[in-house]
């Protein structure tokens, strides 16, 4: 292959990608890395929403959820048990999709636009010990937000069954 044909192939594929994105939103917001196309659905959140409004209130609504996700991310980044798994992560996307997912599951006015738990974790080789480490960081973040323990557990009860999709090793 000549240099020219490589160049042309490259330009064509860029053009193709751009036009594909124009036709179907990539669900990757500005400032996020591109991901392979997938079907957007709240079913990807992996749990049905909690309908009791008291739970969302205990999490201090969307603002509280955003603070909890920020606390969770800070905890993960400082936790030597799991930070390695996240070294290649797209933090802006992870933050956005986690807020969406938590908000959706907690019965907030949000849709989850991220990928399914099985598809996004399949290649990360997560263990049960790492799963629990993440749960502990989430508990710390919920504690910091002042969410009562019993309310935390109502949320964690929705996340616990995701163990089956997240843990692959």
């Amino acid at each position, binding site marked *: 292959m000549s240099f020219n044909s490589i160049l042309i192939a490259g330009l064509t594929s860029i053009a193709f990608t751009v036009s594909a994105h124009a036709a179907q939103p990539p669900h990757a917001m500005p400032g996020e890395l591109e991901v392979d196309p997938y079907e957007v659905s709240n079913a990807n959140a992996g749990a049905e929403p909690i309908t009791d409004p008291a739970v969302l209130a205990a999490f201090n609504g969307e603002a509280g959820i955003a603070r909890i996700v920020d606390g969770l991310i800070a905890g993960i980044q400082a936790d030597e048990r799991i930070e390695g798994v996240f070294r290649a992560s797209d933090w802006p996307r992870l933050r956005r999709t986690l807020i969406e997912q938590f908000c959706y599951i907690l019965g907030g006015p949000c849709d989850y636009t991220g990928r399914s738990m099985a598809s996004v974790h399949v290649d990360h080789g997560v*263990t*049960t*010990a790492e799963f*629990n*480490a993440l*749960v*502990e960081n989430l*508990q710390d973040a919920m504690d910091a937000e002042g969410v009562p*323990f*019993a309310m935390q*557990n*109502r949320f*964690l*009860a*929705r996340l*616990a*069954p995701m*163990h*089956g999709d997240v843990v692959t*090793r």
Partner: protein
Amino acid sequence: MTLIHTMIAGLGLASAASLAATAQAQDFETGGKLLLTRGISTIEGSGGGGLSSWALITGNETERGIGGTAHATQVELEDFRFQSAGFAIGIHDRFELSWTRQRFDTQDAGAALGLGQGFTFEQDVIGAKIRLFGDAVYDQDSWVPQVALGVQHKSNNQGAIVRAVGAADDSGYDVYLAATKLLLEHSLLLNATLRWTEANQTGLLGYGGLNDHSLQGEFSAGYMLSRRFIIGAEYRFKPDNLGFAGEDDWVDLFAAYAVNQHLTVTAAWVDLGSIATFDDQRGFYLSLQAGF
């Protein structure tokens, strides 16, 4: 070899095989369980509550590793002092093997019973448990509990005396099926256990007598106040095989606190009913469990 020895040996072999497979596959991994989810150690040495064996597997290990616990428990009753101490290992959060020595000091009651002041019964309990199916913690989208099958072989060091009071034997075995479920949405931990046993006062007064093995239920409930703190109650039905002294069901109210992932402290108020003709044996239970 009795059925019980075969079962314990079988579980031991299965554990060893499973360990050997791990050793080949990778280095041993330790730790990883969430606080309190390894349970505490029963007076018989198994992972559980304080008086009742549960389906939880002892040790901090997950399905990839090994873990272990050591415990020391003391119960100060109206007329007696009970102590137990032992070790247990958990393999892959699937198998559990335990060894425990129990001491039952009759104190002044020993003299009244004609045994002698401070006469002490001792008993060794070797236990094995296999988790059959279910996950108490993660299966929050189903009602299916974590279910385990366990065996305990017990031998008492006072054969002549337990026979003299009407027991048929100085050693015996229990087989139990335990179901444990965390209802996380309600911060509730529930356990139900069916025990096939002929042990008199867990075997401290020997085995059998008027009756042989019978099925006895054990029920526990705990409410989690935080990641480290759980309070609850247990009820253990007991057989009543001895003519000379009635045996009552056991009740306790407990509070367990995980200081960290290595140390759990449990305090309880227990009512063990009548023991060797001494009624109303209530008192204070304290147990320390260290684990990895």
